[in-house]
């Protein structure tokens, strides 16, 4: 531990602590723009400057580490004046169309400008001098280059944390611009649509592709039968838009809000997650017991991971679970089984999904398999952020809503379905059911603690009827390489794979930290959102997918058995190697 003085107050911090973090101990908030709690400091913006006794120049609190005996001043009239100038310089290069910006009232730059009371343009605007690109080619995330403040968060998260390398800063100085290599469209780049760039952007330079109007249109169309599903991770995050504590589970209020919006039936993606588990656990058991074993099996419910694997790890396509994601299974069930049972013309069903994810917007048309009902199985996929806006537009008093129930038959879920939203959850849910499928008995202890938590790579060895099963869980795409490389090496050498079952989620923390979730995510928030899901799991009467009575009914009345011919027709899909760059 080292001692320092901040604004006259003694603080003691661990070696390696930045002035920015140390200041929190002295109850001081130093303003930041480029620094994000998830990311390494880049020293790009300069708004966090502080004075350190003995230093002739002001130092950046984000990237300066506390040293023994340092005397730090975080605020005085001169520092405030310098910060104001930094802000004015940034604003001279930023459009002032806040009223019609997707980040209006949820923008870090707008907040700083409000806090500093900026009222006029001190420096003449140079916005028009830069050549900006508007890129909505992916139809999932939208880049508005003119709003970029060059903080570097998106580039950092795309390159270092996600290992995707779609975004980069091209040229330099005043000509610097955010773009894929060679100024091509994002859709032609290796972008996997995870949306972490949009989630980390402090301003409106990268936002989700807003599809809310399509949903309003669908709700208005008299000949449509609008139905909706909500993903596991949405229920524990949407509350942040309405002032609830982080991690509050608002499942039943969400059902009520969606009914108020005008959906004729509200389904829960947790239900189709249970179906995914039946299929995936069945697939795992089949591969485990075949001779020779066709392992490892790699989970495939994360569409950004699917895109990443197809682009970067085409060599592993054969190990990918062919099982569709819960979103897609719900889509196809609503337009086949549900439509038939309720005697609704499937062509009239307008299926909307509420997802914590931008890549889910890509998934709904990623291949022919996404049209297996004969129609596009999902019509529109919205993010948590878009739904929060719709609820506000509809004037729904969210807090006062009375709890509602999901609609039968695609609404009843187990604890296994709900934990899909946290890293390790799919693995835990699959293991619960795979164990039952192999042994005919329930697992003695259902909770797979080794798969939980925010460690980048989690491993465990399980005993299933005498067989040793090694599992691995990775989240944040940069953590995937290590695992997949080990598997690829073993495969090439014809050796036993180091893992038998691998779960990958593109986003750090899994879907609770998804690219479509409310802004401002940190590990603390990820933990709280995940805790909400694990609590939901504990409270369910059934905690294993195979015990879901409505899932059992689906198999009796429709799909026969996991991995049956019908199940394959509707619940499975294919993958292919793709080029990372189309241009």
């Amino acid at each position, binding site marked *: 531990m080292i001692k320092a003085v901040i604004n006259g107050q003694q603080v003691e911090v661990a070696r390696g602590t930045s002035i920015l973090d140390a200041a929190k101990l002295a109850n001081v908030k130093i303003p930041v723009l480029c620094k994000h709690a998830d990311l390494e400091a880049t020293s790009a913006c300069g708004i966090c400057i502080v004075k350190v006794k003995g230093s002739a120049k002001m130092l950046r609190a984000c990237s300066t580490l506390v040293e023994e005996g340092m005397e730090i001043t975080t605020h005085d009239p001169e520092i405030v004046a310098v910060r104001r100038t930094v802000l004015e310089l940034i604003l001279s290069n930023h459009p002032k169309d806040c009223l019609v910006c997707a980040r209006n009232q949820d923008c870090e730059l707008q907040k700083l400008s409000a806090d500093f009371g900026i009222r006029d343009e001190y420096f003449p605007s140079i916005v028009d001098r830069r050549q900006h690109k508007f890129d909505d080619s992916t139809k999932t995330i939208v880049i508005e280059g003119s709003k970029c403040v060059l903080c570097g968060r998106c580039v950092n998260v795309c*390159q270092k944390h996600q290992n995707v*390398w*779609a*975004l*980069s*800063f*091209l*040229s*330099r100085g005043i000509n610097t611009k955010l773009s*894929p*290599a*060679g100024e091509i469209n994002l859709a032609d780049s290796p972008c996997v649509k995870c949306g972490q760039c949009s989630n980390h952007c402090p301003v409106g330079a990268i936002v989700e592709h807003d599809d809310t109007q399509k949903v309003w249109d669908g709700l208005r169309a008299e000949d449509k039968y609008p139905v909706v599903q909500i993903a596991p991770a949405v229920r524990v995050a949407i509350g942040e838009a309405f002032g609830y504590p982080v991690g509050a589970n608002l499942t039943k209020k969400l059902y009520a809000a969606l009914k108020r919006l005008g959906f004729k039936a509200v389904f829960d993606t947790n239900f189709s997650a249970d179906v995914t588990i039946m299929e995936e656990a069945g697939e795992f058991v089949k591969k485990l017991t075949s001779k020779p074993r066709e392992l490892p099996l790699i989970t495939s419910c994360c569409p950004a991971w699917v895109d990443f694997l197809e682009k970067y790890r085409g060599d592993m396509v054969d190990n990918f679970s062919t099982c569709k994601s819960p979103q897609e299974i719900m889509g196809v069930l609503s337009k086949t089984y549900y439509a038939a049972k309720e005697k609704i013309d499937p062509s009239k069903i307008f299926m909307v999904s509420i997802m914590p994810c931008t890549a889910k917007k890509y998934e709904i048309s990623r291949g022919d398999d996404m049209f297996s009902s004969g129609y596009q199985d999902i019509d529109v996929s919205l993010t948590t952020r878009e739904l929060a806006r719709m609820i506000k537009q509809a004037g729904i008093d969210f807090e006062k809503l009375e709890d509602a129930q999901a609609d039968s038959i695609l609404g009843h879920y187990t604890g296994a379905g709900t934990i899909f939203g946290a890293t390790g959850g799919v693995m835990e849910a699959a293991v619960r059911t795979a164990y039952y499928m192999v042994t005919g008995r329930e697992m003695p202890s259902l909770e797979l603690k080794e798969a939980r938590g925010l460690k980048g790579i989690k491993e465990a060895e399980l005993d299933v009827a005498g067989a040793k099963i090694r599992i691995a869980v990775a989240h944040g795409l940069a953590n995937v390489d290590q695992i997949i490389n080990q598997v690829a090496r073993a495969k090439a050498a014809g050796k036993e794979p180091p893992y038998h079952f691998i779960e990958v989620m593109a986003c750090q923390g899994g879907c609770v930290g998804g690219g479509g979730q409310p802004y401002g995510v940190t590990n603390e928030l990820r933990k709280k959102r995940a805790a909400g899901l694990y609590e939901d799991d504990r409270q369910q009467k059934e905690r294993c997918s195979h015990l879901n009575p409505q899932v059992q009914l689906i198999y009796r009345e429709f799909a026969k058995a996991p991995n049956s011919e019908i199940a394959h027709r509707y619940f499975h899909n294919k993958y292919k190697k793709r080029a*990372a*760059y189309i241009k």
Partner: protein
Amino acid sequence: MPNASNEELNAIIDKWKDVKGSLVMMLHAVQDKFGYVPRGAAMEIASRAKIPLAKIYEVLTFYHFFKLSAPARHQIAVCTGTACYLKGAQELIKALETELGINAGDTTSDGSFSVAALRCLGCCVLAPVMTVNGKIHGHVKPADIPSILREIAKGDEQNAR
């Protein structure tokens, strides 16, 4: 890719791909061979040297030296050094831009002309100065531009015959 073969590109990549921190050397060698860094060559480097293409373009666009498109057949450069600037270099650039329908720094869509601004060619006494394919033209007036361009085009036609 013009003027160089894939074998030459492969030789460049093979020479440098296992040397840490050698991306700039590779790109220099490629530009030396091809006259610019074609996208295909950048992609080949990316895949064989295992360097993300985004990283390669960050380097390519950071340094002015690197060119991303094939050099024009006729390269026009206008000196914008102090003496030439005072003697009307900006008007020369404007005249070239109007005549060719491009901005300084760009190449005509048929690849025949490029216009660039550069600093001091060391013959200030001839200001304003421009070069066409390396040949110095001194005391140029904006009104001279159309005829200079016509001369070049005429030369092209004769060569084509």
